């Protein structure tokens, strides 16, 4: 791809810097790079969910709002660090009209999920059209994929524990990252977390507990939420833990509205 003629300046034949700078948005965590949408309006829904976006040409216009996308459905569930995609596959048939995305940083793993979904679509015509996967670093690029208050549910199932204290900031649940999740979840939306590592379970719960924009979902509601049952059973990691009879620690919290009045100043409405 580096040989494309338009990557060279016409006058000098030198590689144009702008194409190299573009790497700032792909993230060379491994040998290949992945593209990141400049903003959520640039996300290519028609590629990921062709069934929901029939015949819509991919438009390559500069940053702008594609008017068609406004009327069509947006992603509402995100499985962050989706691994091999077991949760997406289970949720797909449970909520067939909801668009969902898995976010996975490992290239091979995300490729696997992509293949898995395509195979499911072929084997089950009309089904599994609502799930897809992107290779991305969720800790950096969540706002590039989702607008404010776009999501209804976010999943963090069996995330990497990062035991050492100085690595705690790499944990996918932290006070700072919860700010971004709160931004992208609508009021009333839910964040589901589960782990088999006790220390991480305590950590995730205490972050959520402390965060002013989240409150615990009451037990009665958890009992009737069909999604809760999937936390331990749907993902590859969950099944492994279950096979070994391991204990799990879950925390399910709801996005609540920010206090409306702050020092006599009315905060802008949360839309």
């Amino acid at each position, binding site marked *: 791809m580096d040989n494309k003629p338009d990557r060279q300046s016409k006058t000098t034949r030198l590689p144009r810097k702008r194409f190299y700078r573009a790497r700032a948005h792909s993230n060379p965590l491994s040998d290949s790079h992945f593209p990141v949408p400049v903003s959520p309006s640039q996300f290519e829904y028609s590629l990921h969910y062709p069934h929901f976006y029939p015949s819509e040409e991919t438009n390559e216009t500069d*940053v702008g709002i594609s008017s068609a996308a406004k009327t069509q459905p947006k992603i509402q569930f995100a499985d962050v660090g989706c691994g091999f995609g077991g949760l997406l596959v289970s949720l797909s048939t449970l909520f067939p009209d909801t668009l969902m995305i898995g976010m996975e940083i490992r290239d091979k793993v995300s490729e696997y999920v992509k293949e898995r979904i395509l195979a499911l679509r072929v084997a089950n015509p009309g089904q599994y059209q609502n799930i897809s996967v992107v290779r991305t670093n969720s800790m950096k690029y969540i706002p590039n994929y989702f607008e404010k208050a776009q999501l209804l549910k976010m999943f963090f199932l069996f995330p990497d524990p990062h035991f050492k204290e100085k690595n705690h900031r*790499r944990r996918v649940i932290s006070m700072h990252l919860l700010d971004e999740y709160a931004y992208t979840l609508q009021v009333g939306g839910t964040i589901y977390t589960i782990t088999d590592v006790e220390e991480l379970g305590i950590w995730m719960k205490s972050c959520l507990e402390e965060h002013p924009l989240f409150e615990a979902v009451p037990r009665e509601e958890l009992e009737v939420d069909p999604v809760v049952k999937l936390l331990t059973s749907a993902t590859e990691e969950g099944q492994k833990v279950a096979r070994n009879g391991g204990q799990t620690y879950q925390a399910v919290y709801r996005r609540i509205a920010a206090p409306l009045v702050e020092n006599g100043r009315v905060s802008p409405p949360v839309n």
Partner: protein
Amino acid sequence: MDEVSVDEGESNSSIEVAPALIAVHPLEESVAVATGAELRVFSLKGDQPINLQDDSEGPSHSEAIRAISFGAKGRFFASAGDDKLVKVWAVDSWHCIRTVCSEKRVSAVAVSHDGRWLTFADKFGIVWAADLSVVRDSDMPVNRKPIPILAHYCSIITSLEFSPSGQYIVSADRDFKIRVTVFPRNPSNGAHEIQSFCLGHTDFVSCLAFVKTEEDPLGFLLSGSGDSTVRMWDFPSGCLLCTCDVGEKAELGELIGEEDHPAVTDLCASPDGSIVAVAIQSFCGIVLLTCDLSTKSIAVAKVIYFKKSFIPTCLGMSCSAERLWTVTGASNFPSSTTLPLACVKVIDGLQNCYLDSNGAGPVELENDSIPGGEKLLTKLQGSVSAAKEEKALSEAAEAVKTAMRNLLIKKQYSAEKRDFRKRSRNDKKLKQ
């Protein structure tokens, strides 16, 4: 792949280069220049150089200053940088009233409009707030330690600003993000409510400025970026209103040579946006833009060319926007002499070029017509004749350019790579 070789081949010295900075008091009562660890201030009001005094019992700056800013409507001034010190100065006396120690190097600093909160960003992308209020009674001691209030994950923050109403704090980073966060009355529990992200830049964001009118007192945000554009945002919604490709519109291509999309390195604006001055990587001059806030558009008004080797590293302007203050220079670059270099240039008559195209344009002031004259130059530059050191200035400009590139584009990769390696090790451990 190629990044590995590129950033492992990089010498540390180029990353340490610190561009010279300038800040102008909102009422043009004083002008400050930072170069290396040196902070130099000239009082225009008193027409004399200032001897800074330190009452804070904290150490003085010992390494490159990376950020300076007049806050609280000109009552306070903050300076911070590689020595991990954030110093707050009372502008009326130019005494340092507070020295806050950061855990990491500091990349951006801002003081809230009410003068109560000092905020600064560290090299990990974390923004901290420190309470500046004076302890009045011992029963209710103010927490003197800075508190982390928000973070850009793994990205260095280039600019930190409070919105005109003080309701929001806006932070820009070296990826392409601008985050608008509600600034709480009491930020000691953090600033968790993100109002919006302004997304659209396709390279690092280097600078931010606010403009407003009576009809729109909340104002609009302007941002400059490595993608060669200046953009205007309705920041509470994150909506992009206008994109001005400055490199292209100002037809700088030939002048800059190899850079067909030169980065916007700094920007400053008159309060109403009618005058926006832009500094551009490798360009010996300034591009003046004008924002029309009723039509939400930005246009190039005029390009000012400087003599060779004066590529501004930083711009400053008072609220009246009569004059544009610029500085060029750097410290810590390989061939630098003992003195950190700074050279100041002042452009007068900014308003003129907007009135009519035939009228007298903006003019570069001669040494003796600069406010404060040679006294000011002696203070801020270290000598009257700094401008004559053409060779040193062009070396400085080159060093700044390289450093900008390295720092803004590649440095983050190594941090992330380390992150990734560690993470993949953890993965392995887990699998067993």
